[in-house]
């Protein structure tokens, strides 16, 4: 029978995941031989109607990266869901909402005001703001709707597998593709990466002191980072313990702390809250005022802990009414 059809689609994301596909380097040839790419708008001029023309479930697997911010994306995702047997959430944005998800601290109105009015470099005396519908020279132009909240992929459609990572590492992508081709797939809904946290195979783990306590939190640029020593032992916030492993510690090996892009392990409901509990317990103080002083040394707790997973957190966003 003919080669299985594969689709790639790119929703609200930086496009890094699209390139990650190319990152496979020569392996991409093996993939191309094995599959038949039927929809890849970023690389080839596919149109929406091409997909609509396909019979349902005719695409073997479609890799959708990016979170859902616009009505157009919502529509396309639903379309792809209908057309494909397997949907894989490709990358942190699709898997957890990713960095775009941080917009959930604001809503559409405050975002538009910031984007089109208050940013210093914008000159918009007339207050022109993009509208969903506008008539120019008698012709009607439409734009997709801009939702208040960014949603991860599985908050819009049912997702079969997740490929974590802010840009999933080529090895992980390759394993996933091979698994799909050979059909050896884990149960639906699982994340295609080991279910342990980074400390498991991080070389710095053996340098942790017997009783890990932190007197003061420091940002990476405030300290001459010791390339061998565990970041937490140097007072730097590293999400390693609360983040799923599989990325071969490429950030830590570049002497920068882990920011949690692989998301939590299965047993954790909310990566940010869980890490907060863990980190707070290490504070080395018993007196309330002392603890308050140390906690203040963390600049932006929500932003740091929910850097990639705000949409998928328990609350998912800042309360709408609280946004001014």
């Amino acid at each position, binding site marked *: 029978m003919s080669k299985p059809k594969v689709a790639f689609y790119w929703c609200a994301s930086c496009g890094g995941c699209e390139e990650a596909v190319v990152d496979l380097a020569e392996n991409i040839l093996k993939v191309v031989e094995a599959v038949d790419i039927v929809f890849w708008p970023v690389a080839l001029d596919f149109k929406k109607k091409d997909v609509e023309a396909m019979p349902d479930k005719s695409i073997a697997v479609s890799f959708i990266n990016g979170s859902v911010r616009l009505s157009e994306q919502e529509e396309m995702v639903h379309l792809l869901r209908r057309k494909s047997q397997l949907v894989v959430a490709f990358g942190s944005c699709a898997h957890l909402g990713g960095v775009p998800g941080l917009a959930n601290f604001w809503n559409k109105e405050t975002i538009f005001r910031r984007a089109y009015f208050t940013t210093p470099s914008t000159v918009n005396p007339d207050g022109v703001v993009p509208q969903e519908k506008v008539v120019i020279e008698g012709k009607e132009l439409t734009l997709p709707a801009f939702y208040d909240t960014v949603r991860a992929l*599985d908050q*819009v459609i049912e997702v079969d597998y997740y490929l974590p990572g802010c840009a999933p590492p080529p090895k992980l992508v390759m394993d996933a593709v091979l698994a799909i081709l050979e059909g050896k797939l884990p149960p639906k809904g699982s994340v295609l990466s080991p279910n342990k946290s980074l400390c498991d195979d991080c070389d710095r783990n053996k340098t942790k002191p017997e009783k890990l306590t932190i007197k003061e939190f420091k940002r990476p640029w405030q300290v001459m980072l010791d390339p061998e020593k565990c970041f937490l032992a140097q007072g730097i916030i590293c999400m390693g313990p609360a983040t799923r492993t599989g990325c071969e510690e490429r950030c830590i090996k570049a002497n920068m702390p882990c920011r949690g892009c692989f998301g939590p392990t299965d047993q954790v409901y909310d990566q940010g809250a869980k890490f*907060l*509990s863990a980190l*707070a317990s290490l504070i080395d103080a018993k007196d309330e005022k002392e603890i308050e002083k140390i*906690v203040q040394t963390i600049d932006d707790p*929500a932003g740091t802990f929910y850097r990639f997973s705000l949409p998928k957190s328990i*609350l*998912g966003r800042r*309360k709408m009414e609280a946004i001014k």
Partner: protein
Amino acid sequence: MSNGSFEPRLVGFLCNWCSYTGADLAGTARMVYAPNIRIIRVMCSGRVDSQFVLKAFREGADGVLISGCHPGDCHYQEGNYKALRRYKLLVRMLEQLGIEKERCRLAWVSASEGARFQQIVNEFTDQIRRLGPLNFRFDGGSHEQA
């Protein structure tokens, strides 16, 4: 307990040795306190994970109370200190997520302080009632919403 029909829904995480016993003492001593509070017993205040607090707010709680033994009294020596540290960091994050600091409170209640527990609950309920409902909704999907 009047001012319209809004009755705040509160969740209280009480440590088994001090706060829970204190609440029990208040009960046995017939000290009436606001029924709005729903009590979950944990072995030590150190067991309360920030996920539980977020979960409570997510499920519609308007206020969350965490209560443990006085510092130094903890049956497990240091559990309450850990709760205090997490609370301090948690309230800062809740504010960032639009939940007022007052909606989440940490209070030390020892086994013999039944009256103190009654007073805390009543006062906490009034405070939340003044704050009004949290009703944390948003158009985004949640786990259940497929």
